[in-house]
């Protein structure tokens, strides 16, 4: 039975796994779940994942949630190139794991909350952007960028060294969530992080751009939509 992948490309971890699957030519049955239409609340989806979140992997009845777990599972299961998640270099592997666990409450949380406050919440509530909340989350991002710069990248081309790994894909997808709401200066202002993001994109293209198409489209739409919500672009 084929690998089924449930995702919404507007969701950062969904995007990371999608790009990863495509870049590694892993066959899968795409199962898009439109979060904006509430499809994740369907009974059928709830049976698959009681947490009602994307992404979800169903590998012949073995159901897996959590993008961090999926990236590692796919690397093992399909015996992908070692640089994605090194098996023999335990220090590189540990550094990747360290990023994957640190990012939940850092990169992911802050960037997701800025995006949520600048687009999802005002649209859902049909209200103006709560600037105080946006500023609160934005204020944490320079620390995140600095830690990625100084601690995780250092002099390396990628988080684990000279080659791309699963940590880089997830990292870049989370940071990119700032792009559709015109907050990319938070990462473009750091030369090292900006260069790293572009390096990851180039390494994964054309799959990166294919997986991120909705991000680019949303940014275009935000040009008109943003100001109606009170955003200053």
């Amino acid at each position, binding site marked *: 039975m084929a690998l089924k992948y449930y995702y919404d490309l507007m969701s950062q971890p969904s995007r990371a796994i999608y790009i990863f699957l495509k870049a590694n030519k892993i066959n899968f049955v795409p199962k898009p779940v439109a979060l904006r239409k509430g499809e994740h609340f369907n009974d059928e989806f709830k049976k698959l994942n009681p947490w009602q979140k994307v992404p979800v992997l169903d590998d012949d009845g073995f159901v*897996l949630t959590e993008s*961090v777990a999926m990236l590692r599972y796919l690397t093992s*299961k399909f015996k992908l190139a070692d640089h994605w998640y090194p098996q023999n270099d335990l220090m590189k592997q*540990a550094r990747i794991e360290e990023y994957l*666990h*640190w990012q939940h409450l850092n990169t992911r949380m802050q960037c997701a909350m800025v995006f949520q406050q600048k687009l999802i919440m005002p649209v859902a509530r049909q209200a103006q952007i709560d600037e105080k909340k946006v500023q609160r989350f934005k204020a944490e991002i320079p620390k995140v960028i600095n830690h990625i710069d100084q601690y995780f990248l250092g002099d390396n081309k990628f988080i684990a060294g000279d080659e791309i790994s699963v940590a880089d894909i997830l990292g870049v997808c989370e940071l990119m969530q700032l792009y559709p709401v015109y907050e990319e200066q938070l990462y473009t202002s750091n030369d090292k992080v900006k260069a790293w993001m572009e390096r990851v994109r180039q390494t994964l293209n054309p799959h990166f751009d294919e997986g991120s198409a909705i991000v680019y489209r949303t940014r275009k739409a935000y040009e008109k939509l943003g100001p109606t919500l009170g955003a200053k672009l």
Partner: protein
Amino acid sequence: MSDITLYFDLLSQPSRAVYLFLKAAKIPFKENNMDLMKEEHKKPEYLQINPAGQVPAVKVGDFCLTESAAILKYLASLKGKKDWNGKTVEYEARIDQYLSWQQSGMRKPCIEVFIPTLINKITFGLFIQKNIDPKQAEDAKKALEVAICQFEDRYLKSLTDKKTKIKFIGGSHISVADILAYCELYQLSAVGKEGFYKKSPAVKQWMADVEKEIENGGGKGTLEKANKRLCEVKEKFAAADGAKK
């Protein structure tokens, strides 16, 4: 002499998890016991090890590592205890899923019950007692009950058959995820909230099984030593009756 130095404070759940794992798996290590109350984690010497200023951290030779999930997996692999990371590809994935989910799925709901109750107890008898907001307490209680239910349902059940119970998150073999989960839940006992995890027979049994493995590996008294600081907190503030179960 061990090449592993662990920087930890046994009041911190993830610190305790790494400490107990090393003991249970019989991995020798040097202890660098820190006191968060004395802000030792903010001192320049420690910031060299972990610039984020949090515990736990490990130093193995010149290699420094933070994040308890990463530390647990690394040490298990490094010291030939890979079974603790999962005996099959599927169990490895299930353990990874827990280690990722637990930040918001288990740790957060536990903390949201633990911290307000602790503050309420600490300030008991003081002029300005910090009372627990009843609505917040009710929301936190519900969220934790849901989390523990989800934990039992998704992590203590077989990989493909959702009805069959399994002994540990790692299946028949205890895993790093079990130790982390155990420490997170046990923290509730310090503020008299052990009822949350004792309610479900399956979770109660699982905790007993984890404790047995820890004592088997680390020797009798391992848990008593590890949980001592927490017990002191419990005894110190036992007089407070501000918290409602």
